[in-house]
């Protein structure tokens, strides 16, 4: 009965992004309910807004990118991730179909490159790639183009020469322009390893440590639900997953959704555990890009805990 369920308010920074899919899928397959939770998902315009909402107390838990827990430490706030459901970041650096002559990162110098918003994970990702390649990040003009239709339009019309994008936007473009040039595709493990030298966490559930301390039971239940969902996810085909998702999240083009899901499947972690190397990679990346974060000496141990996910794995008998 609903009365027995604890209500948890989860803020998502853009529910349409496939990177956050497990959050919604858990609701659809009844994983939250099974674990005694009633989850209310609020959709926010971006990850930073979701984070702000949690810090301000209007939501309990964020389903968002892990890197925010790193960035926020520079502001003397601590947020702790307790389930990492993406083991790859899913960021793609694609070249506009209108632009010719861009074959490598070097060719981007002096060009306009779109990111979802200046200062966002996509922005940092771009700068990290450039720096790693030995280019000056200041040599490209960064333009905020959002994540969805705006980004697609900007690429299609050649308003930007390249852009960092996420799915399903990448798949939309790939379907329309089959030969789309991708300079980096971290939806694949290979590219992720090449770029970051290890797994690199994308979407996680995180919350303030004192909330976790006060809500051990609920946190564990969330972790349990999430790991169950991940297991379910890997046990089903993209078509079956798409069938479970609500229409408004699948959108009008089911084929496209399934296609996007296919390329995203590798992204989802089967265990919900954080890879320490990956977490450290995030800190390194951001310390390089942002002097404030470098100064803050981010404490890795505060940014995540594998305690809950490990317990969930144990319950389900998953071997790590």
């Amino acid at each position, binding site marked *: 009965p609903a009365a027995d369920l604890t209500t948890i308010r989860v803020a998502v920074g853009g529910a*349409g992004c496939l990177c956050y899919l497990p959050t919604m899928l858990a609701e659809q397959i009844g994983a939250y309910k099974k674990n005694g939770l009633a989850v209310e998902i609020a959709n926010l315009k971006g990850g930073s807004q979701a984070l702000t909402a949690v810090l301000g107390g209007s939501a309990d838990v964020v389903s968002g990118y892990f890197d925010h827990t790193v960035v926020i430490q520079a502001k003397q706030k601590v947020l702790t991730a307790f389930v990492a459901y993406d083991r790859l970041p899913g960021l793609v650096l694609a070249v506009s179909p209108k632009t010719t002559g861009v074959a490598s990162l070097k060719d981007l110098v002096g060009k306009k490159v779109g990111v979802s918003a200046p200062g966002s994970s996509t922005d940092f990702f771009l700068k990290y790639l450039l720096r790693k390649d030995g280019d000056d990040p200041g040599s490209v003009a960064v333009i905020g183009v959002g994540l969805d239709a705006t980004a697609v339009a900007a690429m299609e019309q050649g308003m930007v020469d390249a852009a960092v994008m996420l799915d399903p936007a990448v798949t939309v473009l790939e379907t329309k322009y089959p030969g789309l040039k991708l300079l980096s595709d971290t939806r694949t493990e290979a590219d992720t390893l090449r770029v970051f030298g290890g797994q690199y966490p994308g979407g996680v559930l995180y919350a303030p440590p004192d909330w976790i301390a006060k809500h051990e039971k609920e946190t564990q239940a969330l972790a349990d639900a999430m790991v169950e969902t991940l297991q379910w996810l890997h046990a089903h085909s993209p078509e079956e997953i798409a069938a479970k998702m609500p229409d408004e999240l699948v959108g009008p083009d089911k084929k496209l959704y399934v296609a996007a899901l296919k390329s995203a499947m590798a992204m989802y972690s089967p265990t919900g555990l954080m890879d320490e190397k990956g977490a450290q990679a995030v800190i390194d990346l951001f310390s390089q890009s942002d002097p404030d974060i470098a100064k803050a000496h981010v404490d890795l141990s505060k940014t995540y805990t594998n305690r809950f996910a490990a317990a969930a794995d144990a319950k389900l008998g998953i071997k790590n």
Partner: protein
Amino acid sequence: MRMSRLIDDGTSVAVTSAKPRLSLVTALQILVFVVLVAAWQLGAALGWIDPFFFSRPSDIAAKIGEWLVTGYLWPHLAVTLTEALLAFVIGTVSGVACGLAFARIELLAAVFDPYIRILNALPRVILAPILILWFGLGMASKVALGVTLVFFIVFFNTFQGIREVDPVVRNNARMLQASDRQLLRHVYLPSAMAWIFSSLHTSIGFALVGAVVGEYIGAARGIGYVVAQAQGVFDTTSVFAGLILTSAVVLVIDLGIHRLERHLLRWRPRI
């Protein structure tokens, strides 16, 4: 153009430049609608308009039909309308009240004038996260956003409307020993009424904008939420369907305002 409304007794002569006839107006309105929609549909069919970005009228109609049949839309619409109406009422009442106070108390107006202008120039949408902070992710933050839009529109018009009062009429009431309250009620408010109503037409739209944008930035339900989600999955049809439905509803509310205006301003000479 006539000096006043005349009674047409049927046998009468033709009257020059009368109000356009209702049936003609309706016919033209429908014509405009049909032309626009047909152009859109045709443009999409011929590939001039990319349906990926602009959808198709037929799809939108189908989507609206689907929503109405499944009842998917009602709870979202109800939330958005409640927010918009609350924002409208709160913004209007506070705008009129502050407009009155500022117009009547010169010192207040002089001192706070720059502050009001600064607030009016603040991009509220950027402040939305702060509003969410204060008011949470529920209705309150959307209402607050709407109020920040409505307030200024109503405020500036009320303020100016009050200052437009005919000084002779005002002096007449003062000589008839109207108290300050009575002056407000019997002179300033009725005199400013045309101004206030003019701002209401703009602000009902902005109240809805506030609600929808607020939901768009962060919410768990409402039209803005629906639209944001649809935008995230490239469902342009739903985006347009949501926008069109809300506009239609505002149109109905605005009609109500128009009726009220006609009643309250029936004392004015018709032009």
